[in-house]
């Protein structure tokens, strides 16, 4: 053990080095591999062709999420409902075949534990502090909320992990994003991360692993930390990290795949050594005052296009960078927005509450607190609430949240990626506008021609009940404790 002060990232990295090459590249051991149906078929295919096996199927967990329709999965007789889209059905069937063939644990679409891979991992205790976690999905950064080094990989890397349980990686630079102070009323973890992305930009974290520090993250729940770390990739960082602490340990303890007994005690002792040492240095430090963060949202087609809800659609000429001016104009054309329009004057037609960013129980509670006793506005064509997993859904139903949403006029759906990415029947039609709790506002992300405004669950619910983008703080007198 070196005596040099180290960051959380460096500690996790160093304990996972199998071999170090002369050029600094390391063979890194992967503790946990999450698999879903979209990015895995070609990896399984490659293994089959080469006659290779999974090295550690016991460290691998597969669950379908991206393609699954969020309508009922079983018919009245309890039989699985066939999937109408032939290509989706084919891809889901491939995972269902590949998992048993290669000895991988598989959570079926109809199982109560099914859900979005990044909701299922933490919920099952599969994702643990101090582990390396990969998945063929960029929002794997999510699990960094537990203090795990978690990042998205491509299909060739999936194949590499399957065959060797390792990846060849160059170490990342480290960036500290410290947010200190008191968050204002109505400011949620989603607003914090949108604000951060707005500050550092969509490429600001490229080449870095971000560690979020400061009292704001220490005081945040695990659900909130997962939301923040989830969107690290929207700032260009392959992974985010939040130091594990008592909140983390309390969350992990008792989960189905979490260690127990003596193993738990041993794990806990090690996890407590992980936080960044007092004198450790980051390659870059960004300081943010919590008081500067308002409930915010995106106006354009990059997650860095962030304004406070009290703001206006920016004028492309207001950007110093000429290429940003061009990009902003293109964004405004696509989004159908005019500079100077107040964000709260923008009407919307769709609301999506869900995705790996915001579909956990706290997200649903925050949205329900706004929806309770109100009605979805008449101009809204569709308002979806999609729990992140079957277990989140069950808990929400036990708390009566489903009835709050249904009585307000929202649709209460089965778990999956849903309207986040237009791979399943939940899509936003061309030219229509969605207040969405998801993570990407890219061109065509929610369907060809769709227009996305990224918001927090409370803001999405507020938009649903007013029919336009709105400052959730203005609704609060009637809502419950949001």
């Amino acid at each position, binding site marked *: 053990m070196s005596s040099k002060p180290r960051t959380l990232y460096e500690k996790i990295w160093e304990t996972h080095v199998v071999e170090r090459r002369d050029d600094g590249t390391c063979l890194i051991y992967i503790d946990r591999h999450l698999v879903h149906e979209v*990015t895995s078929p070609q990896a399984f295919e490659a293994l089959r062709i080469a006659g290779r096996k999974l090295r550690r199927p016991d460290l691998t967990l597969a669950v379908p999420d991206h393609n699954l329709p969020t309508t009922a999965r079983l018919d009245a007789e309890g039989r699985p409902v066939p999937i109408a889209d032939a290509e989706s059905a084919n891809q889901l069937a491939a995972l269902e075949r590949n998992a048993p063939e290669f000895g991988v644990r598989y959570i079926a679409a109809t199982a109560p534990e099914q859900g979005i891979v990044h909701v299922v991992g933490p919920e099952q205790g599969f994702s643990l502090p101090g582990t390396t976690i990969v998945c063929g999905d960029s929002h794997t950064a999510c699990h960094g909320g537990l203090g795990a080094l978690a990042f998205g*990989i491509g299909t060739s890397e999936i194949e590499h992990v399957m065959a*060797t349980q390792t990846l060849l990686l160059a170490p*990342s630079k480290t960036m500290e994003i410290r947010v200190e102070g008191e968050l204002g009323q109505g400011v949620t973890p989603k607003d914090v991360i949108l604000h951060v992305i707005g500050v550092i930009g969509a490429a600001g974290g490229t080449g870095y692993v971000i560690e979020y520090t400061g009292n704001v993250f220490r005081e945040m729940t695990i659900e909130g930390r997962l939301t923040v770390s989830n969107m690290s990739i929207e700032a260009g960082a*392959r992974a985010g990290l939040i130091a594990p602490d008592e909140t983390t340990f309390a969350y992990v303890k008792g989960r189905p795949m979490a*260690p127990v007994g003596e193993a738990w005690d041993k794990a806990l002792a090690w996890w407590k050594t992980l936080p960044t040492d007092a004198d450790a240095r980051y390659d870059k430090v960004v300081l943010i005052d919590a008081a500067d963060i308002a409930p915010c949202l995106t106006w354009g087609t990059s997650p860095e296009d962030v304004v406070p809800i009290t703001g206006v659609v920016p004028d492309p000429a207001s950007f110093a960078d000429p290429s940003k001016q061009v990009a902003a104009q293109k964004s405004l054309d696509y989004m159908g927005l005019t500079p100077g329009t107040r964000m709260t004057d923008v009407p919307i037609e769709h609301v999506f509450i869900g995705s790996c960013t915001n579909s956990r129980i706290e997200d649903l509670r925050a949205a329900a607190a706004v929806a309770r006793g109100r009605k979805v506005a008449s101009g809204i064509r569709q308002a979806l609430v999609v729990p992140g997993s079957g277990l989140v859904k069950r808990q929400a139903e036990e708390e009566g949240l489903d009835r709050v949403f249904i009585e307000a006029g929202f649709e209460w759906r089965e778990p999956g990626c849903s309207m986040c990415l237009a791979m399943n029947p939940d899509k936003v039609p061309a030219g229509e506008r969605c207040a969405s709790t998801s993570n*990407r506002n*890219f*061109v065509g992300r929610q369907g060809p021609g769709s227009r996305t405004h990224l918001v927090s669950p409370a803001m999405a619910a507020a938009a649903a009940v007013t029919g336009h983008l709105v400052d959730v703080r203005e609704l609060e007198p009637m809502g419950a404790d949001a």
Partner: protein
Amino acid sequence: MKPIREVEGRAVPLGLKNVDTDVIIPAHYLKTITRKGLGKGAFETIRAQPGNVFDDPEYAGANIIIAGDNFGCGSSREHAAWALNDMGIDAVIAPSFSDIFSGNAFKNGILTVVLPQAAVDRLLEVAKTDQISIDLEQQTVTTPFQDRLAFEIDPFRKHCLLNGLDEVGMTMARDAAIAGYEGKMAAERPWL
């Protein structure tokens, strides 16, 4: 994987920054279970616009793309690299790339060349009329106008690309080291 030494040809002067993976290949094309045929969906939203660079006859058969900052940002979908392969792209030149995309490109034999914005601007100009040459061995991009732009590349990646090496097979040969690590961890961190 086929080895790469030089990439020479016309380049599509795309120029845009933050070209994300949904632009490179929209999600509705991700339902395939093989790697082939994705070229038809590549840059669909850009190709829907009249007068776009991809359908400009001037750049027909181009095997290089020149783009702005942060090319390939967004999702981890390797389909983005497969789509570029399928449309015949051998190299992308930009001031910066997303980390995941550049890894995926590398693993599919697509060369990602990082050059400063000023050099990229120069190449965007040249690309309108002339060919561009990339020499991986020398780590240079050259034009018929005596431009000679040097670029950096990770030595390991360079070695693999020059020799067309299969990374999975190379790592599987390190089995003893991996097994040694696993044995050590079983003792030190038995909860995993």
